């Protein structure tokens, strides 16, 4: 690894939360798949907003409102540039990935799907990309189909080819698996769906924190993600959609900036993005989200990728040295996420002991119960790394796993 490009110790100084003791031990934060930590600049942007220019946006003529409106719209532009969208009008601020998928299901889905139409998802989806489609199928009579995966945690493309057809109206899939780390061949699948005129939605929640995404190159119709997984605050996320499509589909919630004119007889709606941003939006959240993106943009992405892959390979090697440990998700194309179990030990017990050693990791089904059913296990322990993690933290995890094994055997 070229360490001159990536000074992890310098980077760690930007994240105040990392420098604390948990249960008497220095914190090791390996739960980045659940949410990332925030650099000081993001925290400062929230304080600065509320102490300097907090105001409602778009309708005030006064100075503070103009400052807030300008910062809010600059954030939209920052997000556009981040995912290489054509226009800022294609960027809609939402509450997060889960709400965004529901938005598409309830606007596009409710209005354009009919009985017998098919929605295709994959076997490794997060519940957020399963449940809204099940609800939609109940409401419209459409059918939900699932592209299977193999034992390595990779989608079976030959099966996908057989399943996508003239009845397919939407292919909704995760870019990266939160439970297994697999990077799915979304570009290939999008092209397949396009042959049959199906729309495509990509859940990018676990992709954007790890590598640059270009929505025009992917040519997906919708791309969704949450700010809090990529250095930003909770409660804000993004819907990217192709502009023509966003202008065609009806609004979801009513009120606030989404209207153009209102009379008791008829209401006319604004164009995208305001059409989908009813009520006072999360102004501060969008500004802090953009600040997180600015931090990310200032990093050398090749060096970030190399560092994270180094962590992944180092941790995989060290974990494989532990007797009875089995890793789930062995794709050759993975982000730095490792799900595992230790034979004879319950993930909750191991998670408890790791926590006592100051190590924050996720235990359970990771909101992807079908994956656990596929492997026939109740849940896993998951270490999900970020660019601010180190190999010495991985060593601490391994030592603590050994303690857990000793206590529980």
């Amino acid at each position: 690894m070229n360490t001159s490009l990536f000074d992890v110790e310098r980077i760690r100084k930007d994240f105040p939360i990392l420098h604390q003791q948990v249960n008497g031990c220095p914190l090791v934060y390996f739960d980045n798949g659940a949410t990332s930590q925030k650099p000081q600049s993001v925290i400062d942007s929230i304080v600065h907003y509320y102490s300097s220019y907090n105001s409602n946006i778009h309708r005030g003529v006064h100075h503070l409102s103009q400052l807030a409106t300008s910062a809010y719209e600059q954030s939209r532009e920052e997000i556009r540039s981040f995912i290489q969208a054509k226009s800022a009008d294609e960027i809609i601020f939402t509450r997060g990935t889960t709400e965004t998928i529901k938005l598409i299901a309830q606007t596009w889905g409710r209005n354009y799907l009919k009985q017998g139409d098919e929605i295709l998802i994959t076997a490794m989806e997060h519940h957020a990309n399963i449940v809204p489609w099940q609800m939609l199928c109940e409401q419209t009579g459409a059918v939900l189909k699932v592209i299977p995966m193999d034992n390595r945690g990779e989608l079976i493309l030959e099966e996908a080819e057989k399943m996508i057809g003239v009845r397919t109206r939407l292919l909704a899939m995760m870019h990266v698996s939160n439970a297994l780390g697999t990077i799915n061949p979304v570009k290939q699948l999008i092209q397949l769906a396009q042959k049959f005129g199906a729309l495509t939605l990509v859940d990018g929640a676990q992709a954007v924190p790890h590598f640059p995404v270009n929505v025009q190159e992917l040519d997906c119709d919708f791309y969704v993600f949450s700010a809090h997984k990529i250095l930003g605050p909770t409660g804000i996320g993004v819907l990217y959609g192709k502009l023509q499509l966003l202008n065609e589909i009806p609004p979801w919630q009513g009120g606030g900036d989404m209207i153009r004119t209102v009379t008791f007889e008829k209401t006319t709606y604004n164009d995208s993005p305001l059409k989908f941003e009813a009520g006072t939006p999360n102004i501060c959240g969008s500004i802090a989200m953009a600040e997180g993106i600015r931090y990310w943009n200032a990093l050398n992405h090749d060096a970030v990728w190399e560092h994270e892959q180094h962590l992944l390979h180092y941790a995989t090697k060290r974990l494989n040295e532990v007797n009875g440990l089995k890793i789930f998700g062995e794709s050759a194309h993975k982000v730095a996420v490792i799900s595992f179990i230790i034979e004879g030990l319950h993930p909750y017990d191991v998670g408890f002991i790791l926590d006592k050693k100051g190590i924050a990791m996720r235990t359970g089904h990771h909101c992807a119960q079908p994956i656990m059913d596929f492997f026939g296990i109740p849940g896993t322990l998951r270490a999900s790394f970020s660019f601010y993690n180190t190999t010495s933290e991985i060593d601490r995890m391994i030592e603590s796993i050994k303690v857990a094994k000793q206590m529980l055997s």
Partner: protein
Amino acid sequence: MSILIKQLEIIEELEMFDDWQEKFGYVIDHGKNIVELEDQYRIEDNIVHGCQNKVYIASSFDGEHVHYVSHSEAQIPRGLLSLLMRVFENEKPEEILKSELDFFEKTGIRDNLSMQRSNGLESMIRRMKLEAAKYIKN
């Protein structure tokens, strides 16, 4: 032996341990006393809701005392269950209902549990008392 005395016994046994690792070693070892739950008890009605992993509790009554059987997939909850069973086993339902458990607090076990696990422990205690309540007439 009364519920109070059994609690004091556990407190005394745990006093010899200094840190969480030793204390939870004791809890885990204690869980090994639980006999394997027979399949007939592994039914939906016996599942304790509010626990992160699957926990079963069932009981029987000999006309005077309550007897418990239980199971947890994970070892730490199994140890906590085992301590609860030690305290409540073979006691009168009235005594179980009016008992005040404080040994988890006095031994520092409670302080070491996360909020979710602590809620899970409360669910187990509540379930054991509800089981006892079934055997009180009127």
